[in-house]
């Protein structure tokens, strides 16, 4: 409860700070919109040459792209501002400031500040999901919507967990910077995993959880809820949280702070 209140306070502070710079705000919205339009245009060009891509029609792929943008927006709003270049915090000892606060360090380290402008991407992504559904011409069932919401939530938790695991790597190998790599692989979520060949598809589903952020939620919305997945999804999410928690604690035991 206390964490939720704190989270709310962090969010409103960040929002006030960002709204101070109006020009920046408009510029960011324009940039996000361009990136999303480029994504749609790419899909549009691909579908002038084919009607199906890995078993997905244009409308279905649009829904998937929208879902991808929703989760991407959450990532860039709440998680990236804290964990980008996290390695340098460990190297120069700035992590001390987080450890000294009377709040769980894992919370402050991963959610201690945010960039509310990223929510624009979430909104545009949601619009894209609706456009995709309209294109498909099928009204999703109530359970389909519920399944989408649950799986998007699971996708966000898994995203947070994988990003945290990557950041925790800094405790063991401070010279390795994989932020750029993570963002690069993240882009694989733009398309259904069925377009990738087998070893890569397996890796994107089970090792790097790219399938969880777009393919699985979108297919729930389109084809209805898969009972097995909706039960196992939250279990996987809960497992991810436990793993991150224990890795983080083990990492903190190695953290020696820096001099001065």
């Amino acid at each position: 409860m206390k964490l939720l209140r704190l989270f709310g306070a962090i969010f409103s502070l960040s929002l006030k700070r960002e709204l101070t710079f109006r020009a920046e705000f408009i510029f960011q919205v324009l940039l996000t919109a361009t990136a999303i339009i480029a994504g749609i245009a790419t899909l549009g060009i691909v579908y002038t040459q084919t009607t199906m891509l890995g078993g997905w029609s244009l409308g279905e792929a649009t829904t998937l792209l929208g879902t991808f943008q929703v989760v991407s927006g959450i990532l860039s709003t709440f998680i990236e501002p804290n964990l980008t270049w996290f390695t340098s915090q460990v190297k120069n000892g700035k992590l001390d400031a987080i450890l000294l606060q009377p709040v769980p360090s894992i919370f402050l380290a991963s959610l201690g500040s945010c960039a509310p402008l990223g929510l624009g991407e979430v909104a545009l992504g949601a619009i894209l999901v609706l456009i995709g559904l309209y294109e498909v011409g099928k009204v999703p069932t109530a359970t389909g919507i519920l399944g989408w919401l649950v799986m998007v939530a699971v996708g966000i938790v898994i995203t947070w967990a994988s990003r945290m695991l990557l950041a925790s790597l800094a405790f063991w190998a401070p010279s390795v910077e994989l932020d750029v790599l993570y963002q690069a692989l993240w882009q694989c979520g733009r398309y259904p995993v069925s377009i990738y060949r087998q070893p890569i598809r397996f890796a994107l589903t089970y090792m790097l959880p790219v399938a969880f952020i777009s393919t699985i939620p979108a297919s729930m919305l389109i084809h209805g809820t898969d009972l097995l997945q909706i039960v196992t999804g939250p279990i996987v999410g809960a497992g991810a949280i436990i793993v991150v928690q224990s890795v983080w604690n083990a990492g903190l035991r190695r953290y020696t702070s820096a001099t001065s």
Partner: protein
Amino acid sequence: MHLLRLLAVSIKRQFLEWMGWRAFLITLVVNQTVAPLLGLAVWSVALPGSTQIPTYYMALLIVQLMTVSYEQHTFSNGLYDGTLSHELLKPQPVVIGLLGTNIAARLLHVLIGLPIILIVGAITSISFAPVAPRFIVGVLLAIPAVLLAAILRFLFMYLLALSAFWTERAHGVAGFGETLAFLLGGSAAPIPLFPQSIRPLGELLPFRYMLGFPAEIASGSLNEVLQGYGYQVCWIGVFALAAIFAWRAGLRRFMAVGG
């Protein structure tokens, strides 16, 4: 001659400096390969059986690595933290240092990217045999196109980076330019596969001539090659003039920060 020697020294120094960031460089290289590889995956599924698509995207991957440009980092950041003043005091044009950094980065990108190129080539099992003579001609004709594309992409990114004289958001401006280059340069989709209505636009704008054009030649589209070279030269002229103008105008605004 003197300038060339300065450039050679600069490339060598920057090459060694980049080598100190090997681990980070590898992640940069992987990042650069993502767009062409995603294109390869998507288009191989969309047009199964096409022999041109794998060759095109392999060539695009190589072009992407050979023309990589990070002027928004190497130039704009130096302007923001005031270290540009050090460069201005050196008895050489500032752009020589930037060119050295740029060329060193490209050399290292190709070197580090080589295993990726070989692996992808092996997986997609591109067969050159049936088209061998045509393929060799294509590669030979693609070489000047790659060189011109390298110059053009540097000038384009340099011009965007120069916006740092006027705005704090040079990184955003550069990101915008990169999105356009991705969409209209042949990375999202090869320009010949664009719908009829927007294809002339893609052929007119400069982005195709930074990326897609050399890859198209290498994959065997040998029509209107000369016209393409012509476009490249024209756009290089335009961007070179714009960059010179922007540099002069910007320098008058520049006030070194810090101490």
